[in-house]
């Protein structure tokens, strides 16, 4: 129990460190949010108006005072309001995080659905035509950046064939069909890298499992090939694949920026990008804190799970 509390305490300290580092670095970078907002589009604002806006936003307070205010808000669970339109950061995160998660999960499901069977099949027919083509394709998919794939998909499916929308977002409740149509291309784009990784992992893992003694024994016992495959090969091969999948889900959370931008998917990374450009301090800190909080949470759960499985970790 004490171990768990200590582990949670460490996570909270890490979250505080992340928030403080991001807060301080942001304020060190040149750029004045008030001046920037009023200069949108290369317009030259009146310095009086800029000074007034700075004052209104509390940007003239000493940095430590601003930091103190930020920490006080944090303890109440308040991430502050956007400097641009006074919208609560927490509400923005609550609105957009589910969309990013939806995109990641849709991408992951697509990747799993394609990669696991394909990887298994390639391993079973190692050196065959399918294996060679699929392995080559996987290498290609890994090598091509997501924005290239995304742009190509838009060019072919939206601009030439005109069978898919070019991008955007409609809430599921408003129009489920269009929601899914708009989800398809970005999810596919996200899925491509993950699918390639999972394909290779599955293939290697299945090959490894196939050469194990217990598989030979199972065959010798006279089990059907299908039974051996499902119960003894795939099940064992899945463990390393799931570990890789777990690791990559975390990376995807931070890696959707380009995909969301290219497809105009209003997830968490659009406001993050915009907030960095506009020096919208509370928004940047709030979103980074959310993402790192999720990372920490995943790590914490993993640690707790490992500990539950293996008592040796608790002692360490």
């Amino acid at each position, binding site marked *: 129990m004490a171990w768990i509390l200590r582990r949670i305490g460490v996570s909270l300290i890490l979250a505080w460190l992340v928030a403080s580092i991001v807060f301080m670095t942001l304020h060190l970078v040149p750029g004045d949010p008030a001046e920037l907002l009023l*200069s*949108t589009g290369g317009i030259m604002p009146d310095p009086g108006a800029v000074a007034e806006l700075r004052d*209104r936003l509390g940007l003239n307070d000493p940095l430590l005072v601003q930091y103190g205010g930020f920490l006080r808000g944090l303890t109440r669970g308040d991430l502050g309001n956007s400097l641009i339109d006074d919208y609560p950061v927490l509400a923005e995160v609550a609105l957009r995080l589910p969309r990013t998660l939806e995109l990641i999960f849709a991408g992951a499901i697509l990747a799993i*659905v394609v990669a696991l069977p394909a990887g298994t099949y390639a391993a079973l027919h190692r050196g065959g035509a399918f294996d060679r083509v699929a392995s080559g394709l996987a290498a290609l998919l890994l090598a091509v950046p997501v924005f290239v794939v995304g742009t190509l998909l838009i060019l072919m499916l*939206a601009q030439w064939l005109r069978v898919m929308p*070019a991008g*955007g977002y409609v809430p599921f409740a408003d129009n489920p069909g269009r929601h899914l149509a708009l989800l398809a291309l970005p999810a596919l784009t996200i899925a491509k890298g993950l699918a390639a990784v999972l394909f290779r992992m599955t293939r290697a893992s299945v090959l490894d499992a196939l050469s194990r003694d217990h598989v030979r024994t199972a065959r010798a016992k006279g089990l059907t090939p299908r039974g051996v495959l499902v119960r003894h090969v795939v099940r064992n091969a899945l463990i390393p694949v799931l570990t890789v999948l777990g690791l990559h889900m975390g990376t995807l959370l931070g890696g959707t920026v380009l995909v969301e931008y290219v497809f105009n998917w209003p997830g968490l990374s659009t406001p993050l990008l*915009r907030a960095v450009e506009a020096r919208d301090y509370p928004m940047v800190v709030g979103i980074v804190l959310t993402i790192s909080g999720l990372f920490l949470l995943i790590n914490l759960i993993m640690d707790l799970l490992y500990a539950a499985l293996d008592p040796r970790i608790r002692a360490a």
Partner: protein
Amino acid sequence: MTTLPRRSLLLAGATLPLLRRPARAQSTPDTLRFGLSAWPPNLQPWASTGASAGTVKLLIHRSLVSYDSQGELRGELAESWSHEDDGAWVFRLRRNAVFHNGEPVTADDIKWTLEQIAGERSTAYMRAQFQRVERIETPDAHTLRLVTKEPVATLPHWFGGYNMAMVWRKSAPNEPVGAGPYRLTGQERGSSLELTAFDRFYKPGLPRLKRIRFVVYADENLRAAALQSGDVDMIEYVPWQSMAAVESDPALKLDAVDGPFMDVLFNGTRGPFADARVRRAVAHAIRREDIVKTAFFGRGSPLEGVPIPRGTPWYDEQLAHGWNYDPARAKALLAEAGHPDGFQTTLLATAQFGMHKDTAEVVQQHLAAIGIQCELRLPDWSTRVSLGTRGQYEIAIHGTTAENNDPDGLSSVLDTTLSPSHGRSFGVQAPRTAALLAQGRAEFDPQKRVATYKDMQRAALEEVPMVGLAWRSQGYGMKRNVQGFANLPGALTTLSGTQLETAAFA
């Protein structure tokens, strides 16, 4: 073992019905779907937050005047205006205008609005201008008299921008009630805004479209793709590389004008660029066609003088080429200023916007040819703005638009006596240019104004408060059957939003 591949194929096939789903949202004749280039940071009526916000604001709100498709001032909440002998500008308001809550638009509302704009705690874009108004009088409910501290011939233009919304005087602080042709009736934060026609708008029969749905496409290529694939009916800021495709598409049309421009700014407080001859050398050293070709895919035109649009009374063919490309002359000017072998310096631009970076690279090459070796500084836009305002640069690339097509609208670019700004040269001495701008602003006689502004151009060509580089094309792309919209000429292009009130599907 043969069952697996079959199953994997089935699973892979499961995604196909999704792809076959009818992908495009159907267009309806009473709703225009408009692709915006940026999510409006906010829709505050008087603070400037960019042209995309401006387009939306022009539909929700109205000012006293706006511009017609020829770029001439026309009445909105004011039906006429005149300059009286006692020096006051008098605006007579139309009597049938009401705010969205049904309250009539009165002179008191206008007075209250102007007081907010000019107030001590104001963040309004036009704050400084309206602080030059000494008195606001309202002799009756439909007459407004403005007495300025010094004569201003261009005052009606002050009301033409998108940061001059007239607001009901009893509005709650964050809920301004406007009198425009549309009301904001819905939004999907960060991605779309829905405007619905206001049925008591003061112009009979307008607006023609029941709804305008703004959808944000920040990526310019996606915005163009959305137009081509039929996801939207119209887009702003057609990227230059897509203009040819929009023109050649039989279902689409392009309405483009040369409006904004690129220029070189100088830090005149130190180093070689304090000398006007060195600045003039820069002006003669750059082949503008290369910028138009490289940065704008040929969609623009060279600018070899002060940015006065062709076709206006102040335009002069000879003055417009006062900084023609002449490297020999540039070298001679450098030698005369004591730099026969050139010198090393830095050139500030931003990597965040391709047009700034591309322009900077062309300028760098041409300056190298006359011996000025520039090291490029390409920070993000925020840093670029900060460095510019604080004068932490030697020369810089900028892109902007004049306030309007009157030469007075160039004051913010040319008048270096104004406060430091990222869009103006820093500490450059150009006193005659500034004086002539002031003279033109105070002059009411049209003929004399033309003469004054030609003198101003001559002065600027010598004093070089900035160097014009290129006009860039600003285009709206739309379906061929979208009628009744016109891209306003020159600097007014960013104010074309008002034109959407007459837009409709043929």
